[in-house]
């Protein structure tokens, strides 16, 4: 549990992340994702409860744990007083990595994130996407066993986003445990082995993307225009549906059947059937209202 003064940011959550797995935390703004990331990084103490990382208690062994973790924070915090390459070298010192080894890794990592051309640029003059990539490189300087990424792709163009996800996949192949938060649900769906959806500091669901989708919205969705006739029709069929402004979402495991039924019995024509996505789960669980 985590309290900021009187605000309960993370309440009664419990999760286990397996070694080598890619684990996602999803949730609306203010759900408590960053707070959990900061607790795993051992920079924000728990108000109560316990947290174990690599079999060590987060409160009593922060140094050991942190030496095996790489962090991509939500807010960029590159060292503006240094160039791209120097950022990696200065950071390597905090991990006691010997100079020659640090230089080797820095060069390697700049290639890994395609920033070798920017080696001697001050970080201030990097674009947003380059900054994110450099932060990823920085997070890898200590060859972490676990990588924590808080919205690693925020504000990136599709190319840069794909590059980052690509890199994450290859890190996972090397056995790195990856913990991340993201608002790009399609990507989370494709990449994560398991995920949780949270809201108001609590975990609402946990499971693999396909499990979660199956369980909460079924495999398919039929979208139709909202009208009283349709609603009546759906109620007769006892279908699971949700009204979203002008649209109605019908949750089903068999979109074709529903679509046919609606065209035949209710003489509706404007229908689209599509596979259900994580986004549908997300919106169903956390509602559609905007968070403050």
């Amino acid at each position, binding site marked *: 549990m985590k309290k900021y003064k009187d605000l309960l940011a993370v309440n009664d959550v419990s999760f286990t992340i397996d070694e080598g797995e890619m684990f996602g935390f999803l949730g609306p703004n203010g759900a408590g994702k960053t707070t959990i990331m900061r607790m795993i990084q051992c920079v924000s103490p728990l108000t109560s409860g316990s947290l174990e990382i690599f079999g060590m208690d987060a409160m009593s062994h922060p140094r050991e744990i942190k030496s095996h973790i790489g962090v991509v924070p939500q807010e960029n*915090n590159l060292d503006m007083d240094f160039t791209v390459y120097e950022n990696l070298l200065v950071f390597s010192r905090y991990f006691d990595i010997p100079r020659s080894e640090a230089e080797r890794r820095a060069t390697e990592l700049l290639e890994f994130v395609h920033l070798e051309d920017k080696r001697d640029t001050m970080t201030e003059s990097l674009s947003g996407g380059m900054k994110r990539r450099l932060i990823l490189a920085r997070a890898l300087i200590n060859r972490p066993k676990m990588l924590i990424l808080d919205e690693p792709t925020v504000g990136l163009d599709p190319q840069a986003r794909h590059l980052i996800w690509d890199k994450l996949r290859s890190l996972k192949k090397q056995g790195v445990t990856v913990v991340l938060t993201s608002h790009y649900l399609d990507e989370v769906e494709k990449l994560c082995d398991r995920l949780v959806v949270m809201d108001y500091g609590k975990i609402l669901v946990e499971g693999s993307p396909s499990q979660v989708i199956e369980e909460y919205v079924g495999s398919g969705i039929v979208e139709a225009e909202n009208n009283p006739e349709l609603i009546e029709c759906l109620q007769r069929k006892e279908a699971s549906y949700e009204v979203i402004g002008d649209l109605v979402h019908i949750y089903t495991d068999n979109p074709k059947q529903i679509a046919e039924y609606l065209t035949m019995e209710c003489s509706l024509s404007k229908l689209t059937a599509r596979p259900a996505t994580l986004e549908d789960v997300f919106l169903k669980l956390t509602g559609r209202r905007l968070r403050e």
Partner: protein
Amino acid sequence: MRISEYFRIPTVSSKSYTVWQRNKDVFMKDIKLNFLPPFIEPLLYLAALGFGLGRFIENIDGVPYANFIAPALIAISVMYASFFECSYGSYVRMYYQKTFDAIIATPVTIEDVIAGELLWGATRSMINAAVMVPVIALFGLIDISYALLIIPFAFLGGLLFGAIGMCFTAVTPNIMAINYPVLLFITPMFLFSGTFFPLNTLPPLVQYFAIAFLPLTHIVNGIRLIGYGTLEPVLLFDLAWITVVCAVLLVVSINMMKKRLII
């Protein structure tokens, strides 16, 4: 946090050296520019006050006015260097540049970070003194027999003012608010610590107040005694005052920053 917790000795490791190194590396990038102020400033003050105004002033306690203010100029520079480094400088790194956030995600702890910042502040003071001592010695304004002792003394004084600056950094709501301690504490000290006129011309009550509560008094006095080559026992009193207050404030400032940053 209870009051007693502010006095708990923090666990600082040798990792604070990596934070010191980071600041040193930034400093070295602009080394020429950074060395200029401690070189130019004493010359300006000496020209205007020591040799300009000084012509209208009789000897003070048997020494010419320029000789009187020369050690004080070093002391003032010691104060400014670490106070500004650990107030505005640390605040910018903490709040605007998020440097501390980045560092504490590594095996370096927040205590190490603050200790590294304080050590760096003290180093800045020491560098300033190291530049000023030869300049002032060149004018024959200080006795060079013990003058090198001023440099480690400046480090100690730098730690003290760094810790004071850090305490304000820990409580300031924004960067502009650091102007208050500068206006209400640093500037009066600059003028009333036996810097430009001897303390004993002030009313006795003010004198006692200055000796009890104004750290600069002890730095000025110490550097003056060393600079005149007269290592009198009273220097031990100044040293003791600085050491005790410095030790307490170092502990308190680290704990105050912890309270601000660990959330």
